[in-house]
């Protein structure tokens, strides 16, 4: 294996960094999900903190603002007993003219063990993973419109917990797939797990051109796309895209693609409705669906902590082995 996907694995195929779900072997995805289940069970304890990563230092490198994702990584690291430092790079080094490379070298000199990287430019976490000293693990917490692997893994975990093996399921992703790293990573993850039926539903302006190469079927009419699916994944309509005249209005979007109770009837019985959050009620999703029995949106949040704990523990575990 070459390129980005190879960078995140050791020569014997274990997880060294987590950069993308593209090309991530099924066995590793399953190991990550199983490990997350272990962590999920520890989250039911009155004391939720486990001592596994005591003495390790996790540095959150957020070049792009994200309160929610950063918070879940913070909680995950704290619950593993790691020390967490958050650097808001936008307001520090970069604005003083320091290059990314020099910022990295400085953080290495502070004996960090793990970098959680969020960046508005696709590929930044790969750049970092390629250049850090071998004893540091890198986790991609979202890079541009490229990838968001921990979100994809928590989605896979939620799907597997609720509906079973993705290899037996039909999954529809609705909305702005074109600008969504969540959708891209989930599609790669679903493919990795052998999902036979992945559908993309949205207006032509919001669907990327390469879906056919990924064996994703596209639908412009939601009623066609939802027929008999097991899983519905909604995406946040990014309001900033409105200005680019890709969409007429939020109301129009809701009329054409919003998830309503009557549309939910088209899916299989007991299909689940997912959303990476934050949800826009009345835009992507109707109130009665968001608050309904079939929505698993808050499960996704809970599973997200467990997945991030699993990714941290597994990548740092590999670092330990590499050194010994």
């Amino acid at each position, binding site marked *: 294996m070459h390129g980005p996907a190879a960078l995140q694995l050791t020569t014997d195929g274990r997880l060294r960094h987590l950069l993308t779900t593209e090309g991530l072997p099924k066995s590793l995805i399953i190991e990550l999900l199983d490990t997350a289940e*272990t962590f999920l069970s520890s989250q039911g*304890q009155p004391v939720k903190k486990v001592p*596994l990563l005591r003495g390790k230092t996790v540095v959150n490198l957020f070049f792009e603002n994200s309160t929610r994702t950063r918070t879940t990584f913070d909680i995950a690291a704290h619950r593993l007993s790691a020390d967490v430092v958050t650097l808001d790079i936008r307001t520090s080094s970069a604005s003083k003219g320091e290059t990314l490379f020099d910022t990295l070298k400085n953080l290495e000199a502070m004996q960090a063990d793990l970098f959680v990287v969020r960046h508005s430019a696709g590929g930044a976490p790969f750049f970092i993973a390629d250049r850090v000293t071998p004893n540091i693990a890198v986790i991609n917490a979202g890079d541009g419109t490229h990838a968001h692997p921990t979100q994809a893994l928590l989605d896979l975990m939620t799907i597997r917990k609720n509906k079973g093996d993705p290899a037996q399921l039909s999954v529809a992703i609705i909305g702005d797939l074109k600008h969504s790293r969540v959708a891209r990573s989930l599609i790669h993850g679903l493919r990795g797990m052998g999902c036979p039926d992945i559908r993309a539903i949205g207006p032509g302006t919001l669907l990327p051109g390469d879906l056919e190469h990924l064996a994703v079927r596209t639908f412009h009419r939601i009623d066609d796309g939802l027929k008999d699916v097991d899983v519905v994944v909604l995406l946040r309509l990014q309001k900033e895209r409105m200005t680019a005249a890709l969409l007429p209005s939020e109301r129009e979007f809701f009329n054409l693609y919003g998830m309503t109770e009557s549309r939910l009837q088209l899916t299989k019985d007991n299909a689940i409705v997912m959303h990476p959050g934050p949800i826009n009620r009345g835009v992507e999703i109707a109130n009665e669906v968001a608050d309904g029995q079939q929505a698993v949106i808050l499960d996704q949040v809970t599973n997200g902590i467990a997945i991030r704990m699993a990714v941290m523990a597994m990548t*740092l575990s590999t670092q*330990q082995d590499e050194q010994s």
Partner: protein
Amino acid sequence: MREIRSQKETEAALVNLIGQVKETYLDEQPLVVGIHTGGAWIASRICEQLHWDEPATLDISLYRDDFETSGLKRSGITDRMPKQLNGERILLVDDVLFTGRTIRAAINVLFDYGRAGRIDLGVLFDRGGRELPIEPNFLGESLGEDGVGRCKLSGPEPLALMIPDSE
């Protein structure tokens, strides 16, 4: 894998262990907690035999003390533990007792559930080699201080004590 205690011998050790447990908990059923995975099998057998409720299972992989040298070794999930311990009497069950480090980790997990009233330890086989001041209250069979080396319970049906090939 080489067998060092046959199914018959292992069952005999289990009968011995269950006998001691029964004698102690005459009219009070403790909260039985089996350490994943071998301990959970033994815990189930104890509860089945004594007509007690299904045991809780405990995963101790997040509390091990060898992450620095061995990395993450995931074993299973914690299940059926009460939300909060509050003075309960606990019977902690494992298959093979060696250094005592697993039991130390398991006790730490239990403490993160609250305050147990009393914790007893029941193990099927003791192979000696203790590195911590931990001893079983109930024991199926002692394999002697010089012991048998590394061994592993195979199961859940049939139960037998084996030496793994790769060790």
